[in-house]
């Protein structure tokens, strides 16, 4: 291809956008809307499953020791446990601490009836936090096998529920994302196709004069890709701004949920979203214009 032909083709692609203003606007608008929706839900879904995943790390398995165990032995057990892959944190709770927090949590003002006794003497323990709650059963089996461990207290129901919620969210999220993706692909290719279909007469004329398929199609394909690029970029910028404001707003408004609301940074979201958005925009802009133009080239 001549260098001048290349620039001519590129120029025509850009001019096409201008010549066909209404459709260009409609196409950019559609792509923007789709990418925006996709991006928004992707951000929500990602944060949501992140929050749920963090919730699991709040659930602990508690290990009590044989009566009269030595502090060294406890230390040793702790070191060993913390080596496990699924363990994210291990906290030693002395008998006094255990009783204090027990009193606070459960007895309210009625605590006086126990006097200065500590019914939970000998109940120093380890609280073991995990990074994957579905591994709880494994861990418990392991812990029960350790010498010096009297009893392991776990909350099977909570663990089960969390695991389930986790995979429920996973399924629903995946469903949402896939549906949004499908709808976006569908709508975007739809408008791109329409924008070219209205010019099928023009395509026919070019072909009748003797233009090759390539010459006719190239500007349309460039046009489609440019529209896709613009249509994908605008909502990305919008999401960038909106996301950060929303996160700040929500974190501020719902201070109570501080521990729960651990938002992801915009960069964690963009690392996947940007390529997906560009593929959605530019990719479908390319494929849509390519195939639609081809359809009308049979003249």
């Amino acid at each position, binding site marked *: 291809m*001549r260098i*001048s*032909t290349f620039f*001519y083709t590129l120029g025509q692609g850009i001019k096409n956008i201008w*010549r*066909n203003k209404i459709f260009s606007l409609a196409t950019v608008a559609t792509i923007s809307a789709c990418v925006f929706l996709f991006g928004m839900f992707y951000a929500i879904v990602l944060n949501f499953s992140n929050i749920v995943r963090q919730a699991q790390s709040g659930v602990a398995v508690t290990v009590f020791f044989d009566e009269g165990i030595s502090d060294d032995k406890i230390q040793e057990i702790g070191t060993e446990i913390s080596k496990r892959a699924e363990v994210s944190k291990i906290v030693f709770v002395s008998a006094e601490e255990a009783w204090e927090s027990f009193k606070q949590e459960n007895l309210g003002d009625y605590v006086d009836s126990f006097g200065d006794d500590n019914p939970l003497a000998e109940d120093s323990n380890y609280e073991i936090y995990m990074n994957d709650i579905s591994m709880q059963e494994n861990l418990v089996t392991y812990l029960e096998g350790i010498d010096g461990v009297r009893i392991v207290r776990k909350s099977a129901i909570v663990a089960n529920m969390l695991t389930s919620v986790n995979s429920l969210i996973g399924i629903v999220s995946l469903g949402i994302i896939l549906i949004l993706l499908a709808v976006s692909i569908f709508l975007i290719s739809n408008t791109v196709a329409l924008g070219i279909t209205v010019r099928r007469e*023009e395509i026919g*004329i*070019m*072909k*009748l*004069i*003797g*233009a*090759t*398929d390539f*010459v006719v199609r190239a500007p349309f394909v460039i046009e489609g890709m440019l529209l896709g690029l613009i249509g994908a970029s605008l909502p990305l910028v919008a999401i960038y701004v909106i996301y950060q404001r929303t996160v700040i707003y929500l974190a501020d408004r719902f201070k109570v949920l501080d521990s729960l609301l651990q938002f992801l940074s915009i960069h964690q979201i963009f690392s996947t979203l940007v390529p997906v958005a560009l593929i959605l925009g530019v990719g479908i802009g390319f494929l849509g214009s390519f195939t639609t133009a081809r359809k009308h080239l*049979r*003249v």
Partner: protein
Amino acid sequence: MIILEDVSKSYSTGSPALNNISLHVEKGEFVFIVGDSGSGKSTLIKLLLRELTPTSGKIIVNHTDVGKLRHSKIPKYRRGLGVVFQDFRLLKDRNVYENVAFAQRILAVPVRQIRKNVPSVLSLVGLAEKYKSRPRELSGGEQQRVALARAIINKPPILLADEPTGNLDPKNSWEIMKLLEQINKNGTTVLVVTHNREIVNAMQKRVITMKKGIIVSDQKKGGYIDED
């Protein structure tokens, strides 16, 4: 140059538009095609351009069997033809200059060359000043002349003109016909579909008369045949 053998063309509706036409046109000839409205003249042009394919029969243009042309070979074939369409078929979104230049671009003519050729062909058809106008900003006759300019700019070996003066005043029509004659003298084979009796009678060229899809007369140095 152009050979039609027993060519028929039926559209899905109605009686056949062309019915067993046979025709030989030599290289360098100038041929008028006349006939009633709806007698199949435009259909003939469309077959030669391979806009349509014949229902039966064989069309050979410049040693090419047009009916059997592969899709990928069609553009190259069409570039050997210059065509003025009855309904002009200008690119609506582009101005006069771009419409005419387009024919050259697909031949990959260098831009510098195009910048010289387009104005010169536009002034040939009397539209030098209108080069910036869009088709919709032109009068009927002006559009027709743009279509002609686009057809002749590449100096094609064959020129097919379907009613090229239908929207032109007599003076302009004569100038266009003289132009076509000039182009013909330079070696181009020219087929002109026309209803202009005055011109056909005056120019004393070969005249093919069609009626209801068949050729009813083929005169060497003929005139317009009136029925009654």
